[in-house]
């Protein structure tokens, strides 16, 4: 079962994503801030990371920079989630190696699932 790490601080968003993705047959792990996220990534080596850019302690972009320091971790695909869809933020994420991006307010859950499937299959 592919394992996905959700890095997100907003409870309801986590619940919704977890519920939907589990239904699709993925194994879900959750981290609520950047520090915890980095720790969990090294522990569980997920197949995909859903990374919110606005998280406490270490920001989403900060987490990506950390991941980039470790060539092995760098291979894990990341889909970044943005609240605002700020093009500057998204561009920076792309530079840091994000495979895809989601603007939460503009996308519906099924679209997000599609993006996940595109990256790691079912």
């Amino acid at each position, binding site marked *: 079962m592919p394992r996905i790490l959700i890095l997100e601080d907003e409870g309801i*968003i986590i619940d*919704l994503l977890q*519920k939907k993705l589990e239904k699709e047959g993925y194994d879900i792990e959750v981290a609520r801030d950047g520090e915890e996220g980095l720790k969990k990534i090294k522990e569980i080596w997920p197949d995909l990371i859903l990374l919110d850019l606005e998280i406490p302690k270490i920001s989403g972009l900060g987490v990506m920079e950390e991941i980039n320091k470790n060539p092995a971790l760098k291979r894990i695909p990341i889909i970044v989630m943005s609240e*605002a869809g*700020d*093009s500057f933020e998204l561009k920076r994420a792309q530079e840091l190696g994000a495979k895809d991006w989601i603007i*939460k*307010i503009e996308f519906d*859950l*099924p679209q997000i699932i599609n993006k996940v499937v595109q990256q790691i299959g079912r």
Partner: protein
Amino acid sequence: MEEILVQNIRFTNRVRLFLFFLFLTFFLFSKLIGISLAWSVIAIFILFLFATLISEISALKIWQKERAPRVNSSYFAHQLIEILLLFEIGYLIHPLFFFLLAIFYIIFSYFTFSQRIYPRIISLILFIGYFSFGILVYFRILNYYFPPPFFLNFSLTSAILICSVFFGENLSKSSENILETLKGKTEELMGKENQQFQREEEFRRTRAVWEKEMEKKIKEALVLKENLDQEKQKEKELEEKITEMKKFQKSTINQEVRKKIKEGKDQNLTIIESFSDGILVLDEENKLFLINPQAELFFDIKADELIDKPISELTKIPIFESLANLLEQKTEKIFRKELPLKKNLILQVTISPLMNEKEKMGTLIILHDITREKTVERIKTEFVSLSAHQLRTPLSAIKWTLRMLLDGDLGKLNKEQSDFLEKTYKSNERMITLINDLLNVTRIEEGRYIYQLLSYDLVEITQSAIDSYKGEIERKNIKFEFKKPEKKLPKILMDEEKIKIAIENLLDNAVRYIFSGGKIIISLGLLENEIQFKIEDSGIGIPRGEQPRVFTKFFRGVNAIRMETEGSGLGLFVTKNIIEAHGGKIWFESEEGRGSTFYFTLPLKRGKPR
């Protein structure tokens, strides 16, 4: 006179006789002394030239020694006599002789010379030489190019020389005879010439006198002119003094006016002095004429340091530089600009020319402190930005939850439940749109509406925007037409997402404010340096009185509000900002009740985005 002539001719004849013998010697003994005839002839020819030269020079010397101021004409007479002598004797051999000699020579050489080709060529050259020389002499061509005495003389004497070679003795005798007969004629000729000469002399004398007089007059005129110049110079100096006086007068007037202000005599000026806005006045020479205390306060500078200084000098004062730069641009109309002068001080500068009928008398500059307004505006923008951000997360959560419910992921719903949820979902979407618009506006205002420029085809973007409105167009039964350009449009650099928003906003307005069965036409065209987008609708139009505010924030037409309560009034504001950030222009034509046409253009080439 005649004696000299005779002397001369005799002298030449003697030389000629000598040459004749020399020629004979060469001619007869050429074989004996071992040189070919051709060479001997050439040698003789050169000697001829040489001898003629000597004889002529000596003849000229005799002339110059003995006589006469006018060498040329007498000399010509001499030549004439020589020719006449020849004619008289009956030897008409002058040019003809050359031809004869040439032919004779060629025949002679044919029989005499060896059959080698070399001497033949020489003889041919000599033949051609003689022949052409004869022609030249005959037509006096040489005379034309090389005027007498030298060349003509040379040719004539050559003829005579050769003649005398054969008939030397005869010539020398008969020349004397002929001179006798010619005596009278020559005298006559000379007399005529002298008369002519005298007349010319007289003319020359009169002319000299006249020239002297002219010179005198010219000198006088020059003196006059010099005087005139001096006077002009004086006049100029005087004028300069007058202008200086005027300036001085003016500055005294200015000082008086200022004095009056201080004394509070002039009410108007007192008002200016106590005005809460900063006021500066420049005179017509762009010198600072007046500055009120408020302006002094803004610039933190004393009026005395600035008064009467021209703009160019004011640019040197650091705090004044930005304003002075504004003023240096030529302004014929009223002109407004925001000017951040220093920390915590933003001024709105209004520059208006002071006109007296048609003449510009000066410039009025009003400085209005808008720091507070600007701060409030900034806080407002920040507030909107913050709240929009904060609203987005819950709105996303609601959106996703509703979607899950609607998709039946959380259990099956009955029809009524799903209907209500569907409506809630739509309301939520509307709220999201509003928040997005607000966020875009704040981004525009903060200058963070970043554009990612890539090459795109505007037709494709327009088509995708149209596609997202297809359902709505069909629902309202709108006659829709998209006129694509005949030729393929060039791709241009643009932010695809933002341009799509701009087109969607325009299309949204057209579709929203139109009655069922109306008509919308979108057309794209290539102009000289730009692509033009045009959307024409038969909608409700924009009331004339409201047209100037169409592109301002939160604007909604009265008739639009009546028709549709929903709408943020931000669409056109955002659209205008998008188009202008791409270096384009946007405008419209509209008539209430008949419809609107919106246009925008995007340049084919442009620099960096704003």
